[in-house]
């Protein structure tokens, strides 16, 4: 089955793959923050350009990126429709009683560009390092332990959860259940999802036992092989400069 692995291409070789994950996460987070704070539409295109450049440099196939970007695009389409028709301003296009406002269109374009750029930047940030190393990097940069454990267990058990879900739905289908748009389907779906949650809860108890039996006391402790060199800082400086540049250009008009 298809597994939602963000680190599917972590084995490739690129300047982003060889970059220390700690510096990479911090630098690209600064870039993401910078992009989402942009207010000038023209400069936002520059932010998008930077994001596309980093995806290109990461060698992650664009087909893989687009597959994961489709959910963002789905929300963006809804945003375009709602904002273009509801934000007051000069009419860009008029269709009988409907009017698409220029301000609404520009606002939705601005938000869309920011969102797409931010999501695109996730790929060079997390897709170029094995997920376990990204977690260790987050641990090193003092992200709260609880959050890291949450991410780690989600990543480890999402695959099992999906397998379990598939098994439950296959079992239902094998006994003649057909998904329809009616109340009975909703009821069955509710039962199946409920069963999935009960099983997941049982599993969490067993995992907790296994952790306790190996000395777990609430804190996650791991070893890592992360090493820093001047190249990591140079790449970091370049990306942070890239993050500041659109703002400087914006101020200069």
């Amino acid at each position, binding site marked *: 089955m298809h*597994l939602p692995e963000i680190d599917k291409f972590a084995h490739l070789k690129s300047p982003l793959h060889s970059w220390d994950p700690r510096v990479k996460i911090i630098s690209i987070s600064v870039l993401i923050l910078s992009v989402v704070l942009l207010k000038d539409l023209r400069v936002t295109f520059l932010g998008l350009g930077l994001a596309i450049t980093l995806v290109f440099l990461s060698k992650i196939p664009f087909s893989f990126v687009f597959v994961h970007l489709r959910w963002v695009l789905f929300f963006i389409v809804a945003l375009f429709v709602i904002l273009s028709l509801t934000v007051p301003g000069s009419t860009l296009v008029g269709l009988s009683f409907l009017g698409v406002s220029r301000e609404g269109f520009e606002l939705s374009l601005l938000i869309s560009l920011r969102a797409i750029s931010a999501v695109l930047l996730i790929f060079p940030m997390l897709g170029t390092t*094995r*997920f*376990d190393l990204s*977690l260790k990097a987050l641990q090193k940069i003092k992200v709260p332990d609880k959050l890291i454990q949450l991410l*780690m*267990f989600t*990543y*480890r*058990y999402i*695959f*099992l959860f999906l397998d379990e879900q598939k098994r439950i739905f296959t079992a239902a289908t094998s006994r003649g259940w057909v998904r329809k748009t009616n109340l009975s389907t909703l009821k069955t779906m509710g039962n199946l999802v409920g069963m999935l949650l009960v099983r997941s809860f049982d*599993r969490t108890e*067993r*995992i907790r*036992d*296994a*952790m*306790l*039996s*190996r*000395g*777990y*006391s609430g804190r996650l*402790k*791991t*070893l890592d092989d992360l090493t820093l060199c001047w190249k990591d800082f140079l790449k970091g400086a370049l990306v942070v400069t890239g993050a500041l540049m659109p703002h400087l250009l914006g101020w200069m008009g």
Partner: protein
Amino acid sequence: MSRIIKIRNLEYVYPDGTKALKGIDLDVFKEESVGLIGPNGAGKSTLLLHLNGILKAGRGLVEVLGMKVKERNIIKVRQRVAIVFQEPDDQLFMPTVFDDVAFGPINLGYPEEKVRVSVKEALKGVRMESYEKRCSHHLSFGEKKRISLATVLSMQPEILILDEPTSNLDPRARRHLIELLRSFTLTKIVAGHDLELILGICQRVVLLDEGRIVANGDARNVLSNKSLMESHGLELPLSLGA
């Protein structure tokens, strides 16, 4: 042989009122292999969970290597008594094999170098040396079972407890696991329904039913006692003429 586990009048009641263990008395000796058999719900897993303090005795005494299993010495107990759970996906909860095998030694406070050596030796012990960087969810079931063993061997325990070690394994993986278990000289307690496995690696068998020990003796004698086995919902192993 010196006594390594001493259990006296152990009782345990689950929060829902189910009496899982009723007056268990058991001794296990150093380097002995003991099989724990019984029908489903007999209390096998509950008994095993008492041996490294995951469940606290409701009444009675559990002593491991001369230490009473109490909160204050729980880390020492857990280092010496290792449990491999039935389902490997419950045992392998870290993103990579290395992290999983290193989890116990790190929690025990081993220095970094010792952790790395322990991981290497444990993986070598289960013949999976090249798997350090692999993700647990990409392993086959048999590989997961072996790595599960490594996760506790890295803690260098003195007592190894295995809950249904061969369940869901294909014949080849089962055979490999049995060979592996035979090669370990440490004290073993094996719980399960795979009576051939128990006959193959255990000198002594303890039969548990409804929370009580109903038989405790030489593996071949207990497992070949047809009336005893059948009266407790079990069958003779095929090799003993079932």
